[in-house]
Every structure is written in C-alpha cells, then in structure tokens.
C-alpha cells in the first residue's frame, strides 16, 4: 500500500483513538518527544507500559485472592497503575483505576473485584488498539510513495 494511503489510515485511526476517549493529551506529548534522535520513543514507552502493567495486574490479582484482603497494598498497586496509565494518556484505563481506588477506600472487596475486571478489560482493549495503531505507524514510516 502506498505511503499516502497508509498515512491517511494512520491519521484516521489516531483521531478515533482520541475521539473515542482511549487516549488523552499526555499521549500527544509522547509523540512530540519523538524525533530523529529518538525515533522509537513512543513504542519504547508503550512497551514499558505493557510490562509494568503486567507486573501490577499480577500483583493486584494476588492481593485480591489473599485473605484477608490488604486494601492498603491494593491501593498502592492501583496508585502505581493509575500513575503510569495517566502518564501515557490512557484515559479509560485511568478512569477505571479511579473507580477501583474508591472501592478500596471503602474496603469494598466485591466492588474491587468487579472494577478490577473493568480495569483489565479496558487495558486489554487499549493494548490491542495501540498495537494495531503503532504497527500501522511503523509501516507508514517505511513505506514508499507510489
């Protein structure tokens, strides 16, 4: 596929990610920090986000399965998760993290378990979309103009 078509597709997908609320302003800053000297910055940060998130999700699951539930620890993990998703502009994920923390403060175990499902779901959706999007960005970058 020629470059112009690819770039157009990239632009469309990017716009919809923002319009649909998956991504927010901090992601734009990531893009702005990418340049010729740091051509893979966005991908690097996103990759870090995936591995960090995997670690935190595992920790949270473990904490949720423990009895009694340590709500302080849970909140601590979720604070970290919220922090990193907010840093990259993962808006929906961040919002679900906020809901989770409210249940944590209330020491509402059921609420935590439910909202954690939401967090994981939003994270999975975002990850899928980002992978597709960044792959397209990469393709457009190396493609030729027809």
């Amino acid at each position: 596929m020629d470059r112009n078509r690819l770039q157009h597709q990239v632009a469309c997908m990017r716009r919809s990610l923002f319009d649909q609320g998956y991504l927010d302003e901090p992601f734009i800053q990531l893009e702005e920090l990418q340049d010729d000297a740091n051509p893979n910055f966005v991908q690097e940060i996103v990759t870090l986000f995936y591995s960090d998130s995997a670690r935190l999700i595992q920790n949270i699951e473990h904490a949720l399965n423990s009895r009694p539930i340590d709500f302080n620890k849970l909140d601590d993990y979720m604070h970290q998760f919220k922090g990193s998703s907010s840093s990259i502009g993962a808006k929906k994920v961040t919002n679900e993290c906020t809901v989770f923390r409210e249940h944590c403060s209330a020491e509402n175990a059921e609420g935590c378990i439910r909202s954690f499902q939401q967090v994981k779901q939003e994270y999975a959706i975002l990850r899928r979309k980002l992978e597709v999007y960044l792959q397209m960005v990469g393709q457009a970058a190396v493609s030729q103009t027809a």
Partner: protein
Amino acid sequence: MAADSEFHVLAVDDSIIDRKLIERLLKTSSFQVTTVDSGSKALEFLGLHEDDGIINTNTPSVSPNNHQEVEVNLVITDYCMPGMTGYDLLKKIKESSSLKNIPVVIMSSENVPSRISRCLEEGAEEFLLKPVRLSDLNKLRPHMLKTKIKDHQEPEKQDKEEKQQQPQSNNNNRKAMEEGISTEKIRPRLNGITAMV
C-alpha cells in the same frame, strides 16, 4: 565545572515509565539528567551520608560542593515513593549544610492542597502536577540560575539573597495558586535561617 548553559538535574521517581518520561523531557529542555529510583539513591548520588545532616549545621564557610561527587543544579522528585517519600528527601536536602542550596521540585499525580503547601513550606521551589508537561520545565531554569549566582557570592550574603529572591512571581506555584493556596504564608523557614546567622 559545567558551562552555564548546562545544568544537571537529578530526577527521582520509583516509576520506570515516569523516569523515562522525565528524562526525555529534561533532555529535550537541554538539561543533563541523572535518574534514580529512590530517595536514598538520590542522597547517595548527592554524596550525603546519613550523619551529615546532624553535624555541620552552622558552618556557612563550608563550600556547598564539599560533599558532592557531581554538581547537581536541581533535584526533581516524585512525592509518593516507597520508603523515603519526596517530602522526606526534600527535608533531608534542606537540612544538610552541603545540599540545602540545591533547588528541589516536587511532582505528584495527586492534587492535595495540604501536601502542596507542606512541600512549599519545607522549601520546595515548585510543585508540579503529573503528568508533567514540557512547559512546566520552563520554570526550572530560573531556580538553577539563581543558585549559580548565589554560589559566587560571599556566604554571609546568601541569606539576604534568599529573602530578596522570594519567588512571588505570578507564574511560580501556578498550580498551587489555582487551588487557592496563599503563597504569602509560606517559607517560615527563612526567618529561622536569618536568626542562625
């Protein structure tokens, strides 16, 4: 000694993503950067050992760079960190005779007015809300320049300088002011220092 245009910032954050981000932001702003993941590593880097905070509190004639391995012109630290918080780190730096003139900036993802004023009262130059923007970092250079000027003056003049240079300009502590925190009441610490001389 680094050239005037090359300031060295020590960034402290336990989040690997935020560390990478702040590093990139700082480098984009033409600062030299060192990142560490904890307050204790920051103190280590600054050359401060646990007992230095207790002795040498009243020796203004000691060069500020006496204990430092590398010159650091500003410390920017996250507030919420396990073990030593950003606030604890700020305190330790301000209580150290060798490090107290290093400007410290606090970052936090949480907008808690009491937290903000506590940090400013303890001597933090700025309190930035995360996610930190590139434009936020424009506020840093003036604080570092101030210190460079201070370093070239007599030690006795330092305290006068500090009082005169109370950064009451409208852009400083913008986020604190948005929350309606008065900046007039902050920095009782300076009165304490004047009394010491």
